[in-house]
């Protein structure tokens, strides 16, 4: 059966069509969800796409977490449903408390738009089960606030529970412990700053993102 992927779109989200396209190309069925929707419909998996939800006013993701659809996303996640936040979606999941930590301005105060190398640190998550541990993936980043930060006990917990999903080979933004992506305790909620949907076909310069997105399907 074709996996239905709900792609959550807030006012200011701008990557939902890219995610929907990649899902379709890889054999899934995308369903674009609006932030005011009270449910995630019949989705088998949910992706929070990148962009600038609600203008990123106050803090990235701070307003978006109160959109009606987020209650449904939290409920879906609690029931074990796969939820992935890409870039702004990662920031929203952190603000919503579905993932630990926060993302702040890049250490060099530079907007980073480049293809980076990522190391897959664990394959026991909804986004990396089709990858190999230690595999290097070339995927673009495109952010000003991707500098992951959390307190020492939280970092220790993430490390000890194998919740660091992806690390940068060369840290582009000052992110703590080179973290590019993490997951929750249940391993069904994953957030990452890089954009796998922008590397889902060879014509885009890299198809490495397909390794991640296929894990969802």
């Amino acid at each position: 059966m074709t996996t239905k992927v709900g792609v959550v779109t807030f006012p200011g989200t701008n990557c939902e069509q890219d995610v929907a396209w990649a899902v379709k190309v890889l054999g899934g069925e995308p369903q674009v969800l609006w932030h005011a929707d009270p449910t995630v419909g019949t989705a088998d998996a949910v992706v929070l796409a990148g962009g600038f939800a609600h203008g990123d006013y106050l803090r990235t993701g701070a307003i978006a977490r109160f959109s009606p659809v987020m209650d449904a996303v939290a409920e879906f996640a609690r029931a074990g449903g796969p939820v992935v936040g890409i870039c702004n979606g990662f920031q929203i999941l952190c603000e919503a408390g579905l993932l630990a930590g926060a993302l702040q301005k890049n250490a060099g105060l530079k907007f980073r738009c480049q293809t980076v190398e990522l190391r897959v640190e664990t394959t026991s998550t909804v986004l990396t089960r089709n990858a190999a541990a230690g595999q290097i993936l070339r995927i673009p980043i495109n952010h000003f606030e991707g500098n992951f930060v959390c307190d020492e006990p939280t970092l220790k917990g993430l490390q000890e529970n194998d919740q660091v999903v992806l690390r940068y080979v060369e840290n582009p933004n000052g992110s703590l412990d080179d973290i590019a992506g993490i997951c929750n305790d249940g391993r069904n909620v994953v957030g990452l700053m890089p954009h796998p949907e922008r590397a889902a076909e060879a014509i885009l310069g890299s198809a490495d993102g397909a390794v991640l997105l296929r894990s969802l399907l």
Partner: protein
Amino acid sequence: MSSYEARIEVGHRPGILDPQGGVIERALPALGYGNVSHVRVGKSIRLAVEAADEGAARAQVEEMCRKLLANPVIEDYTIELTETM
């Protein structure tokens, strides 16, 4: 009911990198201000609130800070309340 003005300052928690503060701190010596250090950049939020008394007003502003105005993972805040009438 009384009216209060709340001035909320949101800043980085100690130990959290403040890239903007760092850039400003490095820029000031170029203008001849070599004796400046510990530059921190935060946000200032002002709002008016109606409440039964100052305690109730402060409790509500605290709650709003925890829920929305600051992110406790990276930020802390101070609240100044002034009765306006």
